[in-house]
């Protein structure tokens, strides 16, 4: 089951430059913009994932960089020599005169050769205050400067963890504000695993939800996912990034919410096997000739059913037998959606609804409490805190963010 470790044209890759990550589809002779650098990607083709590459100036074009594989990863990173350090910051006055290099000097340095070590060393040599700084703040200074001029990229294969963190860092609203802890709990409280038929309504997580559920369902297993979405096409950035094998991709049935429900209510005979054939013939038989006349087309061969129609039918077949979980991650107010979709949830199974704000879930809580077939209703949110762990310098990270709210409940057999 091990996938290929070789980077190939057509692969979805995550390009990592220190803490920054970006999703990229690798094309032949393609460029990629990362930060203020435009990078020619061809040299990574045929190399392995996790390999590190150095950005090098391209001789004919100042703005374009090419990549060169770093054979010995050990030399990447800080090798700057520090001569002396101060005890504390009593003699450091912060004004604009500490750095004697001008911005133009630095730009020129960067254009002549992008080498973070060399640039940082120059910056240090031209800093009046650097040697007065404490060891700790020198380290911090170097880290900060290195980050700016860091010339190494690493190529990663997308995983749910990397994607969730990447989307959240770029713009939390693109994934409905779903933070990694939220996602992890949505999956566990909904009991998503390799078995069963799962139902998801998602309106705006860039495909992260369907990707995460399919990832938990796994390759070569029996589980399926019905992914309902409100648009013509579902969002699938993250889903495509995961590059699931075909067999697994097929077990995610993407259907439009309106059209699948219309099919479910108004076109029962397309998916229910045991409906008497007589009624089917009559209801179907009448409007057909009329339509043919209107179209005025010559002898028409039975047209191939469009894929969306087939998808609707296979989804309805599953819905008719009920699903083993229900997840709603919606931009819309959840009460109407849940009210409608709960009929498809098997008794004794879990449902989970996510919202970045609490109030819609409070409404939903009250609605569910009023139903006799719902128990164990829980509304929760998380406090997630990251730590800097360094010898003698361990503390919570300066910045933190707020996650969303999760409502989970169990449906009973009525």
């Amino acid at each position: 089951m091990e996938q290929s470790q070789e980077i190939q044209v057509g692969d979805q890759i995550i390009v990592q430059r220190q803490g920054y990550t970006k999703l990229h589809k690798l094309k032949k002779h393609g460029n990629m913009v990362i930060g203020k650098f435009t990078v020619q990607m061809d040299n990574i083709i045929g190399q392995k994932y996790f390999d590190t590459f150095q950005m090098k100036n391209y001789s004919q074009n100042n703005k374009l960089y090419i990549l060169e594989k770093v054979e010995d990863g050990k030399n990447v990173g800080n090798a700057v020599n520090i001569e002396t350090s101060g005890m504390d910051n009593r003699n450091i006055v912060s004004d604009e005169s500490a750095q004697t290099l001008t911005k133009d000097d630095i730009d020129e340095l960067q254009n002549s050769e992008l080498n973070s070590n060399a640039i940082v060393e120059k910056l240090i040599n031209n800093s009046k205050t650097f040697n007065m700084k404490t060891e700790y703040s020198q380290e911090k200074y170097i880290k900060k400067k290195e980050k700016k001029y860091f010339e190494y990229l690493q190529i990663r294969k997308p995983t749910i963890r990397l994607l969730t963190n990447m989307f959240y860092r770029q713009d939390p609203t693109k994934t409905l504000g779903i933070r990694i802890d939220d996602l992890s709990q949505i999956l566990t409280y909904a009991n998503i695993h390799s078995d069963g038929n799962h139902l998801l309504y998602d309106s705006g997580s860039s495909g992260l939800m369907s990707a995460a559920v399919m990832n938990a369902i796994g390759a070569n297993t029996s589980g399926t996912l019905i992914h309902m979405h409100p648009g013509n096409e579902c969002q699938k950035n993250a889903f495509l990034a995961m590059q699931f094998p075909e067999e697994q991709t097929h077990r995610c049935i993407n259907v439009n919410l309106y059209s699948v429900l219309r099919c479910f209510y108004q076109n029962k005979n397309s998916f229910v096997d045991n409906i008497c054939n007589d009624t089917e013939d009559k209801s179907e038989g009448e409007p057909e000739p009329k339509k043919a006349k209107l179209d005025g087309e010559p002898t028409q061969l039975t047209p191939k059913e469009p894929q969306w129609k087939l998808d609707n039918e296979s989804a309805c077949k599953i819905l008719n037998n009920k699903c083993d979980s229900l997840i709603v991650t919606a931009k819309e107010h959840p009460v109407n959606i849940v009210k409608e979709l709960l009929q498809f949830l098997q008794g004794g199974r879990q449902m989970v609804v996510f919202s970045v704000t609490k109030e819609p879930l409070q409404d939903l809580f009250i609605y569910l409490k009023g139903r006799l077939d719902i128990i164990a209703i829980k509304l929760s949110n998380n406090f997630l805190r990251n730590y800097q762990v360094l010898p003698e310098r361990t503390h919570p990270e300066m910045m933190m963010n707020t996650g969303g709210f999760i409502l989970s409940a169990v449906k009973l057999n009525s």
Partner: protein
Amino acid sequence: MSFDGYKEVINEGDTVILYLTISQVYNVKAEGKTLNKKGQQVENIFQTPYGALKCAELIGKTYGTKIQLSKGWGYILQPTPELWTITLPHRTQIIYTPDISMIILQLEIKPGSIVIESGTGSGSLSHALIRAIKPQGHLYTFDFHELRTKTAGQEFQDHGLANYVTVTHRDVCCNGFGEDLNEKADAVFLDLPHPWLAVPHAVKALKSIGGRLCSFSPCIEQVQKTCCELKNFGFQEIQTLEVLQTQYNVQIRQFPTLDVEFLKYPKTEEVEKKDREVQKCLTAIPPAQQPGHTGYLTFASLYPIWARTVNKNEVDSD
């Protein structure tokens, strides 16, 4: 036998979750007979605040239905790892669902993964790990406490999960995870008093294409030592975090309103006695007290051998 896959009807021997209220949830076994403290066979009766439940009556009932008790009723549910976590018999401190969820997502565990866990403890995390790796994956779980491994092994057997898990009695800090597991694991989870001692063994056990590691420690000193050791052994993306969950009680509350408008005008003769007005408000109330710390979660990646910055031989010779 009720943990492997979705079920409709309770069979004899199934573990069943008895749900009474949000804070009264229990697990019972659908068996007519059980052993009492003296080892004698007696009728399996479970006492609840709402009356006794004869467990034999559960057999043949449908999961997710109501069950009548003498002084009320309850609901019977098929166990999930989450329900098991809140009802399991504690033999040690256990890891709860917010941490468990984070561990599984961050360790990038999916069906087919080979996972190592140490220690097994009460099996709270183990059940969730097994659900995540089924059907092709496998969990190797270790504990240095012999009785715990035996009890956990029996539990997995009873729950129908024995095929997905191997329980071993061993002190992994001293003896490692065993030669058989060299370069076999996708992920290693450590919940040990001295997790840093297990780091070198984790390096050996992780696949040559790399893998993820997690260490759960309540104390920051443990985290500090572990992080240093992880760095020494060439782990990357070392990250420490903690997750705390708050559960809200949603209620429609009535607040009395104050009206001071009348103070602006002189007193009039006819004093109208008005009813005190109330305003309804939908509120979500956090508990007055809740756990403020469970443990620090430290995650790290071991890159594939071609991208490792620390050579395995270098470490061995240290």
